[in-house]
């Protein structure tokens, strides 16, 4: 049986890393979009509290504070996630371009291994170098987007830390005004669930981002 065309293990590793990088960027984008959908639930919690406040008469003032807090959190989360999702088109473009150019680079490298006649070596090498420069620009663009995503994830984490105090506030208000409201206590449970989800997603996105950055580092090392 003849050996496979991609005989070079080094080139094969580059292909796998690039594919993994592409997969990581796509996953990051998908996680951001899914979290943005989940955040709609926060809006619903805010609306529930607003309805309760309207029904509670003179005690509605305390509830309005809660409504405002939930509204503020929901808006902050939506804005931060919106900024992450806004990075998706450039992240997509750069990762697809990286994948494409990396495949081309592999084929050219294998062509070199197969042997390029002396009269064509200058042309071939110039073309190869040009492609590597474009690939480096793609990697730099990906790196910038991942760094920006990292900053936004820190912001998101800071916002998420404000969720438990809001839940505590609801418990206090419910106790103070002797409000028999299963709905408000349900809101506390929902907030706790959302907080857990948010924490999990942030950690997952951080992990994906770390993996993508590792692949970029490996690809740079492989191209050196």
């Amino acid at each position, binding site marked *: *049986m*003849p*050996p*496979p*065309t*991609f*005989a070079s293990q080094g080139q094969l590793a580059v292909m796998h890393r690039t594919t993994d990088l592409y997969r990581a960027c796509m996953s990051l984008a998908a996680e951001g979009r899914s979290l943005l959908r989940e955040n709609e639930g926060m809006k619903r919690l805010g609306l529930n509290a607003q309805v309760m406040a309207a029904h509670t008469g003179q005690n509605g003032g305390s509830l309005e504070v809660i409504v405002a807090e939930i509204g503020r959190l929901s808006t902050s989360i939506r804005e931060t996630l919106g900024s992450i999702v806004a990075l998706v088109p450039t992240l997509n473009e750069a990762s697809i371009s990286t994948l*494409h150019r990396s*495949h*081309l680079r592999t*084929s*050219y490298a*294998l*062509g070199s*291994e*197969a*042997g*390029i*006649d002396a*009269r*064509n070596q200058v*042309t*071939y090498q110039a*073309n190869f170098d*040009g*492609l590597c420069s474009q690939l480096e620009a793609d990697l730099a663009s990906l790196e910038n987007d991942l760094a920006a995503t990292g900053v936004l994830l820190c912001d998101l984490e800071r916002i998420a830390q404000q969720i438990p105090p809001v839940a505590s506030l609801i418990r206090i208000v419910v106790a103070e005004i002797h409000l028999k409201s299963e709905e408000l206590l349900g809101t506390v449970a929902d907030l706790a669930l959302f907080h857990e989800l948010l924490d999990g997603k942030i950690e997952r996105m951080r992990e994906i981002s770390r993996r993508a950055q590792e692949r970029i580092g490996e690809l740079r090392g492989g191209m050196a």
Partner: protein
Amino acid sequence: MKVHKLVEGTEHAWYVLGRDSERTESVIDTNEYLIVGENEALFCDPGGTEIFPQVVSAVSGILPLEKIRHFLCSHQDPDVFSSLPLWMGLCPEATIHLSWVWKTFVAHYGHEYVDRFQTLPDEGGRIYLGRREFEFVPAHYLHSSGNIHLYDPALKVLFTGDVGAALLPEGTTSLFVEDFGQHVSYMEAFHRRWMPSERARDVWLERVRALEIDFLCPQHGSIFRGEDVGKFLDWFAGLSLGSATA
């Protein structure tokens, strides 16, 4: 990969590249045809990405790569020209000739090069390498709905894409048909299945029987030369096609 000078005239020569022993066995073996003129070259069906390393290595030993100014993409299949972006990088002056039918499809191999596509009308056309004229011969529905062959009247060579293609046994080394009778067994099933239209076959046969042909060069399998060219045309004329609809 074997490199063989097929025929040479005063102003140009045909080279065939094929029988790539280094290709992975999961990809079909292909023949690539390079026509080298004094100042420029035309490359017919340069092949897929998987075999690019071997092909570029072989071609680099024949001519300066930037001398390739024309590529013929006989039809849309990936084994024909999925290597498009790799060649475009190396041949910045090159134009790709293909049927208008496939322009937006072949663009999937490298949309950034679409401005270098020169689409051919259904009637085919002509191209010059230096003073030498070549003819783009229509071969639609054989097997592709937009299929182009290339005829060289000076050296009497007809490049036929998948017409005349054969799936040879492993280890076949000869580039030419040696025993026509035996060769039929390597190409019969292929033609019955891949070629969908007997009417298209008849139109094509009428057209190419009017040409003087010393070499009939398919993209897969062995090259027909001399009397075997006529034998192939006669055999093809009597074949029932479109076997999957039977």
